[in-house]
């Protein structure tokens, strides 16, 4: 089985790190195959950034993501750019305080929002919003295991920041779990 994921947002939101952690969780800690392709503008902040992650049970010959099964968007621009590429029946995970899903969604898309920035701010640092998103991704897609994602977060963040990053992961995970166990999600 092969799953294509695209993560899109703005520079400074940790888009690439989010994609990298998902890929690391899948490949190193869950024993699957994964590839990552990153794209960003020359500016440090505010320019578009995106990551293409492919996760598969078999070795991956073609790493580019054309029609993602899962689209994670953290900015309105990323939504506008990438939502036309989302596969029919695919999943849209979005930053619900920044992005408003609309009619451009493909048929049957599963739509799940999380106020990742707000949750990160409540923890004390906006900087960890991408880790909130990793937790949310883990709970809602079940493409990577909870344990693998947690280990990948710990393995990827700077020393000394582990506790807060884990709190961010748990906050996103818990939010996602509540969504998938309840009926808060919408299907386009």
């Amino acid at each position, binding site marked *: 089985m092969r799953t294509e994921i695209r993560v899109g947002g703005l520079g400074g939101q*940790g888009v690439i790190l989010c994609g990298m952690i998902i890929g690391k969780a899948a490949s190193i800690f869950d024993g699957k195959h994964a590839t990552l392709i990153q794209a960003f503008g020359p500016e440090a902040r505010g*320019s578009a950034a995106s990551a293409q992650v492919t996760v598969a049970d078999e070795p991956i010959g073609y790493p580019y993501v054309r029609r993602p099964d899962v689209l994670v968007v953290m900015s309105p621009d990323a939504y506008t750019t990438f939502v036309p590429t989302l596969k029919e029946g695919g999943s849209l995970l979005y930053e619900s305080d920044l992005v408003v899903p609309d009619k451009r969604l493909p048929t049957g898309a599963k739509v799940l929002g999380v106020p990742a920035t707000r949750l990160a701010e409540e923890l004390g640092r906006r900087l960890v919003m991408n880790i909130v998103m990793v937790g949310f991704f883990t709970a809602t897609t079940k493409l990577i295991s909870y344990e693998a994602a947690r280990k990948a977060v710990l393995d990827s963040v700077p020393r000394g*920041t*582990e506790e807060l990053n884990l709190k961010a992961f748990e906050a996103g995970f818990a939010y996602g779990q509540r969504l998938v166990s309840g009926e808060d999600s919408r299907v386009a």
Partner: protein
Amino acid sequence: MWPDTTKVVLRQGPEVHIRPMVAADAEALHRFFLALPEEDRLFLEDDVTKPAFVQQLLAEQEAGRAFPVVAEASGEIVGYGVLYRPLFGWSTHVGRVRMAVARSFQRQGLGTAILRELVRKAQGLALDKLVAEVVEDQVGALRAFERLGFHREATLGNHVQDLSGKKRDLVLLANDVAHIWEHMEALVADFEPSAG
């Protein structure tokens, strides 16, 4: 999350476990405070010999305003540290630390180990800055703080009075614990310098 217990092997060999304080520690902690030389107790500011102090500490821990740790060796408490975090006001980003180590365990790195746990906790709470007060001639304590990134921010002249009535300077130490987030900021920049 804050680890339950951190094992530390001190310079002279003893093994010490540092962990968050729990209600069951109340008696042992009270014994520890009573055993401290009066001179050392003065530095803790509160009257730690009163059992009410430990109860107050537990209440503040419950409220999320205090994060006390104890260092345990052979079932006895031999060190104590606490991180205070204000929940209201203009300095909610600043934590305050205090600690004490039993005389027989001093100069073995235990103070540094306790302090390290408190700094980690502060970072986990997203605090930006830590402050501590040390009397000018507490050389060991000053060294422990400086080793973990604290620097002298101010000196209050003749601010404390020891048991003999002698007045001494109080050093205010500060540590910008938010600096660790600079690495995280670089990681989330989504920026490749060579691409610009």
